[in-house]
């Protein structure tokens, strides 16, 4: 029973992180119809930024957190402006290749700058404190993660639902061209999407790497893929969908590990993807899109 609770908590925690990253995928896809293959690598870069800030420059952790989030956002926006914006009218395959190119570049850049050897992630002492709830013991970060996730998601949903910018975002994701005709500054909205997505990726990166020992240049690629799957599972373009998808993937993965199938936990994620796509091609909460003939 204790174990069960422990696994639940762990699953919830990793699921929340996946949810945060999945939101980045789902928002970009919703607006640009682009799988941002580089998102997982932005997540990885955020981890390196943290190492830089806290280890190389010895900046206190509370300043580092803010700095890292800001720098990650800047990185994301630069990527959008340089790699995606020039291809706005290009066929979709080109943009997808561009995204893959960015991912390739970031991974190689990280290998070059930080070497392929794993680097230790700086620990924030407070977050690694062990907590005890009766029999269940866990670190603070595990408990904190779902809470941070909930706060972020609620704030984001409020932004999308109740603000003018949010309305513009919804409009753009519904119909790119018409939104433009209605006077929406499309480039600002797209930039904002990247700001939010990368900000959440940075937060997710901190929560993800704190309980883990090290960072390496390919560390973002598998979590990135899983989060994309989470986004697809929930129905790409839907923020609540991404959250549900992230949680499902996280919890399933943890329990797969719990029953001793850790080797296959990733396989399971991909199989889940194929099954979902076969029976519900647009995911749990996705809207059906049909092509006009």
């Amino acid at each position: 029973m204790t174990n069960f609770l422990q696994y639940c908590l762990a699953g919830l925690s990793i699921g929340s992180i996946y949810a945060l990253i999945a939101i980045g995928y789902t928002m970009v896809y919703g607006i640009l119809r682009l799988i941002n293959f580089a998102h997982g690598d932005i997540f990885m870069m955020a981890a390196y930024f943290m190492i830089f800030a806290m280890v190389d420059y010895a900046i206190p952790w509370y300043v580092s957190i803010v700095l890292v989030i800001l720098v990650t956002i800047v990185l994301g926006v630069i990527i959008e402006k340089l790699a995606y914006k020039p291809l706005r009218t290009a066929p979709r395959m080109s943009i997808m290749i561009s995204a893959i190119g960015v991912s390739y570049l970031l991974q190689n850049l990280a290998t070059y700058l930080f070497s392929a050897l794993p680097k230790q992630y700086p620990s924030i002492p407070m977050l690694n404190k062990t907590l005890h709830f009766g029999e269940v013991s866990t670190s603070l970060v595990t408990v904190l993660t779902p809470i941070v996730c909930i706060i972020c998601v609620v704030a984001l949903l409020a932004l999308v639902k109740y603000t003018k910018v949010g309305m513009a975002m919804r409009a753009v994701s519904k119909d790119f061209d018409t939104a433009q005709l209605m006077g929406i500054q499309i480039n600002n909205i797209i930039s904002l999407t990247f700001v939010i997505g990368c900000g959440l990726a940075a937060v997710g990166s901190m929560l993800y790497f704190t309980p883990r020992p090290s960072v390496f240049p390919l560390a973002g690629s598998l979590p990135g893929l899983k989060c994309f799957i989470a986004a697809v599972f929930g129905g790409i373009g839907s923020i609540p969908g991404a959250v549900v998808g992230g949680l499902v993937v996280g919890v399933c993965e943890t329990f797969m590990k719990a029953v001793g199938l850790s080797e296959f936990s990733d396989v399971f994620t991909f199989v889940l993807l194929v099954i979902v796509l076969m029976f519900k091609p647009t995911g749990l909460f996705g809207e059906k899109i049909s092509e006009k003939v």
Partner: protein
Amino acid sequence: MEKKTKRICSVCAAAALLVLLILSYTATGTTSMLRSVLQLGAIYALAACSMNLLNGFTGLFSLGQAGFMAVGAYTFAVLTIPVNKKANVYYLYGVADGLKNLALPSWLGLIIAGLMAAAFAALIGAAVLRLKSDYFAIATLGFAEIVRICVASSPLARVTNGSLGLKNIPGFTDLGFIPAYFVPFIVVTVCLVVMFLLIDCSFGRAFKAIREDEIAAEAMGINLAKHKTLSFVISSFFAGIAGALLAMYLGAVQSTTFPLMLTYNILLIVVIGGMGSMTGSIIAAFLVIAAKEWWLRVLDVETYIGSFHVPFLRTGFRMVVFSIVLMVVVLFWRQGIMGQKEFSWDGIYNRIKSLKTRKKGANIEKANAGGGVNE
């Protein structure tokens, strides 16, 4: 240009290539790098063409190439490792009973490797080919990762030797009077010829029709499911063979031999060569491999000119330069070397003629060709 002239040109060109190849073999010393680059280039050319058949000709954006290559490579390795070396390879987990006395000749191993990859494609094709473009990309990518995880997993350890991978894979051997060095070129050439024949026949045209407009293709009586599956299976067959050749070339394979990065590398070749051009892929494969494995190696070595330390040069810089090249190609030179065109003497002839008649106009033409070739 007349048919006869074209034929003469083709024979001359083929002969020239053959002579160059033989020269690369007979010349010794510093050229060993050249030889391995040429072999690896040929293998990548096959892999790139197989990807192009799917991505460039049928318009199905697949990212599963590394997975199918892994299937081919592992199938080949499992079937052909010599019996007396098996104990050495499987020293940790032991070898599965059925495989203990099994060692097929290389040529049979190659064919089975291709067939195995094709069988996998047929199996998953039914599920994933119904997906729309980006979902298809992700699903195939997922498949490649699953293959990678599975071959390294413990239940298959007695077959695939877990994360240790397989070694002592038979390399290229002399084929009668033909030296071993030429074997990969022969295999690749045969495969490429088949692919060229395919893209130029009615089925190849049907693939292109699907790329251009699925709805119109279906309205013209082309069975989408059937033709997409065919393209997927054939592409995977050749990817499997490319994987097996890679296993022969390397002599050892592990699950880490076939990372997502490999798919990206092949995609890079396809994009540089031009999506929808086999000749483009072939040219790009040799260029990219030569640049990556040979010419740009200097970028990875710290260099001093006199006492001046050349900045940036250290391990990994080569790949950064490479990625930047890819980005530049994607952003500014979208049609790649060949666009959607294949090499033809007429093309060369016309180009020379247009260069002669209006040297100035060439720039304008180039600028025009830059826009909208892809769509």
